[in-house]
C-alpha cells in the first residue's frame, strides 16, 4: 500500500464523513491527484513528528470541518465572522499549535478538495507552462510552502524567495523545502506581505500568491506589490476565495469581476481567469464558494 492509499484508508477509518469528497477529488484527475498528493505526503513526512499521514489527515479533517462550519454560519449570518486582521491574529495566527495543524489542513486541501484538484491542474497547464529560462520566483505568503516548491520541482533551474508574516509559516516552508531537497534553491524571510514594495522593483520573473487576498483588509496591495516586483515580461499566479467563509477570511469577494477590476486598478493586466467551485454546496445555500485564479502581467498602460 503506497502513501496515498494509506492516507485514503486512514481518512476512511477515522474521518468517514470526509472520504466521499476525497474520493471525488481523486476522480477529477487520478494521475495528477496521486502524483501531487504523494509528493506532499513525502515532503510533509520529513517535517512532522511521528506518523505524518495521521498528522496531515487529522489537520485536514479539522480544517475542513472548520471551513464547512464557517460556511454554514456565513449562510445564517450573511457575513464573515471576522472583519479585521487584528481579530484573526489574536484568535488564530498567534496560536502556534493551532497554526501548525491549520497549515497542514490548508496544504492538503489543495489535493483533497475536488475543485482544488481542478485548480491544481489548471495551475500546471496554464501557469507553470509559461515559466522558462530558470526563472526567479517570489512567493507572497507561502504559508506551508507547497505551491512554491511544486513550482520549483516542475520548472528546472528556477529559484524562489518567499515572504511571510508568520514565523511558523516560514519555519514550515523551510522544513518542507529541506524535505523536498530544494533548500539550495529557496530562501524564506519573515516579512509582511504588504511591505513588499520595499524590495527591489522588477526583480522577479514570476510571482505566486495563493489564497491570500481574502485574508487581508486591503487585498489590492497584493496586486500593487505584484506589479512592483514583476519584470516587464513577468507573469503572476494569484488566487482568491469568493463567498468562502473561513475563520481567518475577512475580505468578502462576491463576484469574479471584483478581482479583475482590483488587479487592473493596481497596474496589472489580466491574461487569464478561471473560477472553480465545489460540485455540491450546503442545502438551500445563497452563497456559492469559489476559488478563482488570475494570471496577470504588468500593464503597459500609464
Amino acid at each position, binding site marked *: 500500500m503506497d502513501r496515498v492509499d494509506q492516507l485514503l484508508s486512514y481518512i476512511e477509518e477515522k474521518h*468517514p464523513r470526509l472520504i466521499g469528497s476525497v474520493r471525488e477529488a481523486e476522480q477529477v484527475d487520478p494521475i495528477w491527484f496521486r502524483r501531487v498528493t504523494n509528493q506532499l505526503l513525502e515532503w510533509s513526512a520529513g517535517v512532522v513528528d511521528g506518523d505524518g499521514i495521521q498528522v496531515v489527515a487529522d489537520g485536514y479533517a479539522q480544517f475542513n*470541518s472548520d471551513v464547512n462550519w464557517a460556511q454554514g454560519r456565513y449562510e445564517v449570518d450573511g457575513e464573515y465572522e471576522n472583519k479585521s486582521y487584528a481579530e484573526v491574529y489574536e484568535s488564530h495566527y498567534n496560536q502556534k499549535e493551532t497554526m501548525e495543524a491549520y497549515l497542514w489542513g490548508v496544504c492538503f486541501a489543495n489535493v483533497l478538495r475536488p475543485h482544488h484538484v481542478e485548480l491544481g491542474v489548471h495551475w500546471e497547464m496554464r501557469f507553470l507552462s509559461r515559466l522558462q529560462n530558470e526563472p526567479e520566483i517570489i512567493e507572497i505568503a507561502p504559508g506551508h510552502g507547497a505551491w512554491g516548491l511544486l513550482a520549483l520541482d516542475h520548472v528546472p533551474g528556477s529559484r524562489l524567495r518567499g515572504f511571510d508574516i508568520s514565523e511558523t509559516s516560514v519555519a514550515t516552508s523551510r522544513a518542507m523545502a529541506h524535505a523536498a531537497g530544494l533548500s539550495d534553491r529557496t530562501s524564506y524571510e519573515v516579512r509582511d506581505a504588504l511591505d513588499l514594495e520595499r524590495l527591489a522593483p522588477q526583480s522577479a520573473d514570476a510571482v505566486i500568491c495563493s489564497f491570500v487576498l481574502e485574508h487581508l483588509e486591503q487585498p489590492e496591495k497584493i496586486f500593487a506589490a505584484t506589479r512592483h516586483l514583476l519584470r516587464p515580461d513577468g507573469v503572476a499566479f494569484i488566487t482568491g476565495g469568493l463567498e468562502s467563509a473561513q475563520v481567518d477570511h475577512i475580505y468578502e469577494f462576491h463576484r469574479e469581476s471584483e478581482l479583475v477590476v482590483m488587479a487592473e486598478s493596481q497596474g496589472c493586466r489580466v491574461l487569464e481567469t478561471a473560477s472553480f467551485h465545489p460540485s455540491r454546496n450546503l442545502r438551500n445555500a445563497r452563497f456559492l464558494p469559489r476559488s478563482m485564479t488570475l494570471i496577470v502581467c504588468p500593464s503597459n498602460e500609464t
Partner: protein
Amino acid sequence: MHLLVLRPKGIAPLEPEASHFTSRVQLDVAPVMQPRLRQSIEIQSTVPSPSQRSMSSAISLEGVRTASGKPYPSLEPKHPNCYPRTVNATMQKLQEVFCDLFEDDDIVVSRNTGAADVDGWDSLMHVTLMLEVERAFGVRFSSGEVADLVDVGQLVDLVESKVSG
C-alpha cells in the same frame, strides 16, 4: 419508565375465563435507544376483562411474565446507555430531524449511529444537520463542538448540556 418498541408478531388467545382473559403474545422488543438490541420474546398475560382492555401502543408490562414464567425484568434504567425521559425526548426530536433532513422515514438513530450508518451523512451534510439541530433546540454550537462529534450519542449529550446549561 423505560420505553420499549413492541411489535406484535402474533396473538394466540387461550381460554377466556369469566373475569379474565389470558393471551400469549409474541413481540419484537427493543429499547428505543438501542434498536439494534431488538429481540423476539413471548409473553403471556392475563388481564381482567377482554372487553375493557385493548392492545395499544402504550402497554404496561406490570404483572406480565415472560414465556418461562419469570417476571419481566425491571424497566428502570441501570446502564449508562439508558437515559431519563428528557433525553428520550431529545432523541425523539433528533430522530425527526434526521428523517426530515435525509428524507428517509426508515432511519432509526441510536446513540451509536455514526456517519457510516446513514447514507449521505458526509462532511457537508454534517453542517446542515448541525444547523438544523441548532434551530430545532434553540442552541448554538461552536466549530470545535461540531468537528468533534462522532455519533448521535455525543450529539444527544451536547444538546442536553446546552439545553440544561
